[in-house]
């Protein structure tokens, strides 16, 4: 599904290499986790895949179901089925959460040549999915992420994911700043979306999220590269011993 080959990325503004040859394949139906120390390039990878400005791909490729992601505009990537739950969701004063989501859902449908969703249908679906994430009507009406707590922002990301029904979901530290209950809610939201056709790339610092979202494969990223790949036990190893041992071992 998601294929990343030898991806090298540097900053546009300064001559600084951040990704130094990332290789990664996420198959449909699988959950891959990426762990790694701060600053290793995890968020950069998620941004480059979703098309944020400011990065220059110097070599390598990234495809989603064979389509070249790097050639597409961010909105085209979204319509192709890519979704990024942001590490830091953006506040947008003046744009209602509901308006935003309906615009997004219908823009994607339009881009794929599908019929738009009626206002009534949309309302029905969003109410139901918001309820499962304990997002109340007030949060839906408020401007996007404005005045939301950290946990509310992350749940709002998962709601967007649930509404947009992407093929490939990247979650960037969706667990950071969440208490245990909020994390369970988020994990439930993610698990509810797991199916054979959908791939997940879960970026996290901590093993604890992976107790709730069971990964099939765990990668360790350090200094712009995937340095080790293994099964769920790799996450436990990190939890118990930190990164030092793993990094020393691959150095």
């Amino acid at each position, binding site marked *: 599904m998601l294929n990343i080959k030898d991806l090298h990325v540097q900053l546009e503004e300064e001559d600084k290499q951040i990704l130094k040859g990332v290789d990664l394949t996420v198959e449909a139906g699988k959950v891959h986790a990426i762990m790694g120390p701060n600053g290793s390039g995890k968020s950069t990878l998620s941004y480059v895949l*979703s*098309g*944020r*400005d400011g990065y220059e791909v110097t070599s390598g490729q990234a495809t989603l179901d064979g389509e070249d992601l790097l050639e597409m*505009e*961010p*909105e085209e*990537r*979204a*319509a192709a089925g890519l*979704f*990024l739950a*942001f590490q830091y*969701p*953006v*506040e*947008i*004063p*003046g*744009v209602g959460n509901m*308006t*935003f*989501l309906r*615009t*997004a*859902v219908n*823009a*994607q449908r339009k*881009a794929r040549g599908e019929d738009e969703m009626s206002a009534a249908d949309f309302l029905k679906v969003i109410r139901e999915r918001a309820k499962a994430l304990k997002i109340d009507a007030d949060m839906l009406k408020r*401007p*996007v992420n404005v005045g939301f707590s950290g946990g509310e922002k992350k749940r709002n990301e998962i709601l*967007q994911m649930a509404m*947009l029904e992407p093929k490939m979901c990247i979650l960037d530290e969706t667990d950071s700043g969440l208490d245990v209950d909020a994390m369970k809610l988020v994990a439930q939201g993610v698990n509810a979306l797991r199916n054979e056709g959908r791939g997940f790339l879960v970026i996290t610092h901590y093993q604890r999220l992976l107790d709730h979202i069971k990964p099939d494969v765990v990668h360790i990223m350090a200094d712009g590269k995937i340095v080790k790949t293994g099964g769920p036990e790799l996450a436990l190893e990190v939890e118990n011993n930190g990164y030092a041992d793993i990094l020393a071992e691959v150095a």
Partner: protein
Amino acid sequence: MAEPAPKSNPTEDRLDTLAMPQNGWADATRKAALARLREMGLPGRRDEYWKFTRPDSLVQSTAPVAALFHNEEGPLFGDLDRLKIVFVDGVFDADQSDDLTLSGVRIDRLAESADIHWASDLYGALEGNGHYVPRPLAALNTAYATDGVLIHVTDRAEKPINFIYLHENETSDAILHHVIKLDPGAEVTLLETGPAAARFNKVMEVDVADGATFHHVRAQGRDHERRAATHIFTRLGAESVFKSFTLTVNGRLTRNECVIDITGDDAVAHVAGACVGDGDFHHDDTVFVTHDALRCESRQVFKKVLRNGAVGVFQGKILVKEGAQKTDGYQISQSLLLDDDSQFLAKPELEIYADDVACSHGSTSGAIDEDALFYLRSRGVPAEIATDLLTLAFLAEAVEEIEDEVLRDALVERLQGWLERHRG
């Protein structure tokens, strides 16, 4: 021996092209206004109050040509039950207008009114009040206005009154003067729509008595080349409410002045504006609010979206006189610059002589928030729609000053239409 040619005087040159209408009761006021105008002189480039806006084309003897603008949009507020008063290039059009009868209101035409006692006390009075800054284009208007409407609101007006200003002649030069008097407790909503003329000079004097409520929603026409200098002068009695909103899309040059004198305690005055300009567009909002009473609230909210070299100007002042305690004054002026060529010039001012007041003002100008734009796009919203959403969000604080949802939605729809026509 030949006389040396007299040095040309822009004020006299302009006056030479005008004839003072005669309508009895206003004659003395018109002459007084002319005398004031001669004393002030028409604005020139060096005038401090015109530092950011070149008055030349508003002052010159004839109106610069302004092409007519056509598009598919139907008339604004077309579905609304309202009393229509139509002017074509500044000339009242009885055929297109409704009967000037409305419960709770008496309406007369300036050009036809023989003896309007209430208006003779008001016509030119609020305009001629001094207001610390010379406003010669308004004095010129009082002296030479050819028509306008005198509205006396004695009760709750049954429905909104809509001045519709059609522009059908590329060189029309219109001078209209309206006077609106609200009796204690009276209420009216006034709508103004349309470009009016190639060049439009309009004064509106609004006297809001104790406990009266005046709502004003204006949409200045979309003709790209039109020019306008408009003034609103208002005086507010105790516990009265004045709320004015202006939408400006297009127009080569617009100067909207609003002069608010709050004279009664516990009054509320809001003046707001949203403008969107693309290219050869210069829009100037100049506001002067004077607080001379207790516990009054004033709000100025102005938002401008500028692209392709468009220029926005805001000059806003809050003057709190001695003794005007518990004044709550708020002023915000912001521009969204969609490119580096566009420009926003602002001069916000506070002058406060009372010690127990809460006044704040702010002025900013900035570009589209790139993080917000990326966030929207990452959800599949195409860049141009995302930009429109963020632009409307930027304008929202001003647009939300319109209390009536139907009117607000109608203007938002116009803004959306403009944004769609001006993408990329």
